[in-house]
């Protein structure tokens, strides 16, 4: 067996699909709900419906990954400590409230759907962070990163659907910009904390490879486009649409990288080497780690 951390294979792109679908879907329900409360528009129904479809697709990804899918209702048995159970318990309420919001198009159903979506998104972030065996996931700074990228993706999709429906989404433009700033900060804090606190070298290599493209094209580019749109007026929709598209795509790439390419396990370590005969005490080893 290997000693240094190696790439785990228990969760693969299908697990990433759950975080992508569930995160984008819940983010969309939150952001579209906020926009609907302040500037009611026809695109809300479409947004809420798409949000539910995305969340369902995420759950289908999970079903495709688990070994015994016909027992999947057992997932509801451990709400005391399991974030996966908590996510599964919220899911039916989210779909019911979401369906009601699609039908009603406003009112309490929208607020309820948004609140349940926020809970769902939070469960997803905590679920990843509770994976103690994967250093790139278990860091506490994973939580704000997952939350902020979920909101970026949701605001981006809501803005795109709003534009496609012929609406001008000033609130969503600002919301997307704020979410992008939040993701920029949470990503920076996450990657710097991982470097400082220690992580498997190969996980860091995977994340460092993402850093440039994400910060330049996934963050700076859409932020500039949104600032242009805000400064020069939102008559021209293309800067907002492009920013939204890039924000969503970069969030998906970020999650895919985090859940698959950066998913190196803990590996093994010896804090001290065994003494044989009259040998001296030698420092321990932690192969494959940056510190």
């Amino acid at each position, binding site marked *: *067996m290997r000693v240094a951390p190696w790439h785990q294979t228990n969760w693969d792109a299908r697990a990433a699909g759950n975080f992508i679908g569930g995160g984008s879907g819940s983010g969309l329900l939150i952001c579209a709900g906020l926009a609907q409360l302040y500037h009611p528009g026809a695109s809300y129904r479409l947004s809420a419906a798409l949000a539910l479809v995305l969340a369902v697709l995420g759950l289908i990804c999970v079903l495709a990954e688990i070994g015994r899918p016909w027992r999947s209702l057992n997932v509801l048995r451990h709400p005391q400590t399991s974030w996966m159970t908590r996510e599964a318990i919220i899911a039916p309420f989210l779909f019911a409230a979401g369906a009601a919001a699609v039908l009603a198009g406003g009112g309490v159903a929208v607020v309820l759907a948004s609140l349940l979506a926020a809970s769902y998104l939070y469960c997803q972030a905590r679920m990843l962070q*509770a994976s103690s065996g994967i250093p790139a996931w278990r860091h506490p700074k994973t939580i704000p990163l997952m939350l902020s990228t979920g909101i970026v993706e949701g605001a981006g999709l809501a803005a795109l659907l709003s534009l496609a429906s012929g609406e001008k989404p000033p609130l969503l433009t600002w919301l997307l910009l704020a979410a992008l700033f939040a993701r920029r900060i949470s990503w920076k804090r996450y990657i710097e904390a991982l470097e400082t606190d220690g992580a498997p070298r190969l996980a860091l290599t995977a994340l460092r490879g993402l850093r440039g493209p994400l910060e330049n094209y996934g963050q700076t580019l859409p932020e500039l486009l949104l600032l242009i749109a805000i400064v020069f007026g939102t008559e021209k929709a293309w800067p907002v649409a492009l920013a939204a598209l890039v924000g969503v795509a970069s969030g998906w790439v970020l999650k895919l990288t985090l859940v698959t390419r950066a998913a190196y*396990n803990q590996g093994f370590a010896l804090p001290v080497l065994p003494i044989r005969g009259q040998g001296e005490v*030698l420092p321990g*080893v932690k192969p494959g780690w940056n510190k």
Partner: protein
Amino acid sequence: MTRYIMTADLRRCIGCQTCTAACRQANATPPTVQWRTVLDVESGEFPDVRRSFVPTGCQHCASPPCMHVCPTTATHQRDDGLVAIDYDKCIGCGYCAVACPYQARYITHRAEFAYGAAMESETARSDERRLSVATKCSFCMDRVDAAKENGLTPGLDPEVTPACVNSCIAGALAFGDNDDADSNVSQILATTQHFRMHQELGTHPGFYYIWDKK
């Protein structure tokens, strides 16, 4: 109370993998699965290099992350500290596998045998319930459970002691009740210097590594 633990004397282990083979034989695990494995850790730089052999597997943690994340309660902790899996509840989601910092959990989806067709011993011990669910070292809990019926002591009587411990030719592995001050493992820990792996993660493992005398 009872708290079963295992100790591995790293000064004694020679990396022969007999424990691995004994575990495979006792539990009929598939070829790619090693509930008890021995790491070969190389350290230092030429000419001052060392090799350390480190038996590992499920550490039966006092605060097992696998149990905390398990959405089905299939992974649970017994009163004697052993972490067990109910194969009939597990859905094979793999969450426990990514939560375990000791890489101790396996999920296999097909029945595989060492030489293609199942040998008699594999047929006798393989269990279809273990397909597509999480599996791991159980500290041979079926043997441990037999101790109560037979009035025997796990760790001292081979019939009720984990297969890996019984097979260890160097006497590196020991098993017993850490809550009993007179037990074999309590005596070993009282007279040696030891550590537990990845203690900083707060798992409180039930697997102690001995590295020197006191």
